[in-house]
């Protein structure tokens, strides 16, 4: 479903991702964890072309994106990849000038060229699924952070993605609102969605993910099942990280 080969990313001289290779099969739920500055978010953003990769390749659902491709080919591939991926951001990034349902509708109409009526039916169904059917006509500013993030999930799901990318989806939320977002994500995972989740929610990662990627200094330092990773991490970096996380 998703494959990275020798994936590298540099900002000027600064190498943020160093030759990452991995394969994620369909229906797998992958949690990416690690200290800040380790390249987790950059890695995620490379997967759907929000960052330009500077080395190696990414394959998403048979669309091969290579750093060596010409700009034109890259653009076309990235466009295709984005049709198959949904992304949820730390800061929600809902469109503030549109109502909740319009946020969900927008890409259906603009990208998928669906009729307004059809799009509305689908959008309503998705909002119901994330428990916000009563907020359809509200503007995002009237919603709590947790509700906004659920709308953002519905917006991403509207394009019927094959893979969902989550970039620290609960980091900007008040603690009491984290649960409702994680619940929606958990349900998605149970339905078999392929998911890559950058997160600091260790409990969630342990309970929901099939696989943990521990990143440090732009590399995947550990790649293990949650049970193994959280009980017997094999590297010193991971041990230290987990000690710090568990201090509280």
């Amino acid at each position, binding site marked *: 479903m998703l494959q990275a080969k020798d994936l590298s990313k540099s900002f000027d001289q600064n190498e943020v991702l160093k030759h990452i290779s991995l394969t994620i099969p369909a229906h797998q739920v992958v949690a990416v964890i690690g200290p800040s500055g380790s390249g987790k978010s950059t890695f995620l953003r490379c997967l759907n*072309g929000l960052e330009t990769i500077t080395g190696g390749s990414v394959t998403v659902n048979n669309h091969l994106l290579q750093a060596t491709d010409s700009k034109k080919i890259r653009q076309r591939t990235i466009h295709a990849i984005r*049709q198959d991926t949904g*992304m949820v951001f730390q800061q929600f990034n809902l469109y503030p000038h549109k109502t909740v349902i319009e946020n969900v509708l927008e*890409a259906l109409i603009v990208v*998928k060229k669906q009729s307004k009526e059809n799009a509305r039916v689908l959008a309503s169904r998705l909002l119901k699924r994330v428990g916000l059917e009563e907020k359809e006509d509200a503007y995002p*500013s009237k919603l709590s952070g947790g509700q906004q993030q659920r709308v953002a999930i519905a917006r991403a799901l*509207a394009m019927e993605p094959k893979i969902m990318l989550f970039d620290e989806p609960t980091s900007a939320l008040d603690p009491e609102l984290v649960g409702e977002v994680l619940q929606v994500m958990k349900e998605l995972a149970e339905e078999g969605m392929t998911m890559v989740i950058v997160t600091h929610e260790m409990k969630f990662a342990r309970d929901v993910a099939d696989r943990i990627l521990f990143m440090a200094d732009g590399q995947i330092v550990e790649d293990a099942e949650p049970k193994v990773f959280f009980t017997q991490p094999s590297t010193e970096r991971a041990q230290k990280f987990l000690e710090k996380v568990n201090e509280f």
Partner: protein
Amino acid sequence: MDIVIDNLPFLLKGAYYTLLITVVSMFFGLIIGLVTAIARIKGNRFFRTIARVYVSIIRGTPPLVQIVIVYYGLVDYGVELDAFTAAYIALSINIGAYVSEAFRGAIQSVPAGQTEAALATGMTEAQAMRRVVIPQAIRYAIPPLGNTFVGMLKETSLVSVIAVTELMRSAQLLVAQYYVYMPFYLAIGVMYWIMSTVFTFILNKVEKRLSVY
């Protein structure tokens, strides 16, 4: 005072032309300004440079000079424009530069996350710009655009030098006829002030309308 009231129809006609020139120039200025702003933000090096040089020249030269260049200067090259056309062209080009600065600031104040969210749902850069960024930018742009608009209203008085009978020149003609200054100049001063105030009022309303969210 009577002398003003007697000639009010003539002055009102001048005011009408002032308004017309303002609105027409602003209309084309908005288009020029939007294109220029997008060229400066999203264009390749070639378009960026052209847009930057254009804005720099217009902002760095007096509008009066721009007007006489378009009306008198172009005659040397066989381009003879009637006074109104010259006024529209000169003022549209002039205002476009200022409008582009307002738009540029506004577009840049829309958070990058908005574009990213739109791109992530599969929109192209152009779709993201059109559907997500610009609608938000317009709201940010309204206060500076309002200032530009009112500035334009007053700047139209400059086209009196190329014999366009707008409000300023209407007063000048009346002064030449009656040999009194104050009543006419005072009258048009009041009329400019009323028009500016009404514009500002309308723009405030529009801004409120757009800030429902």
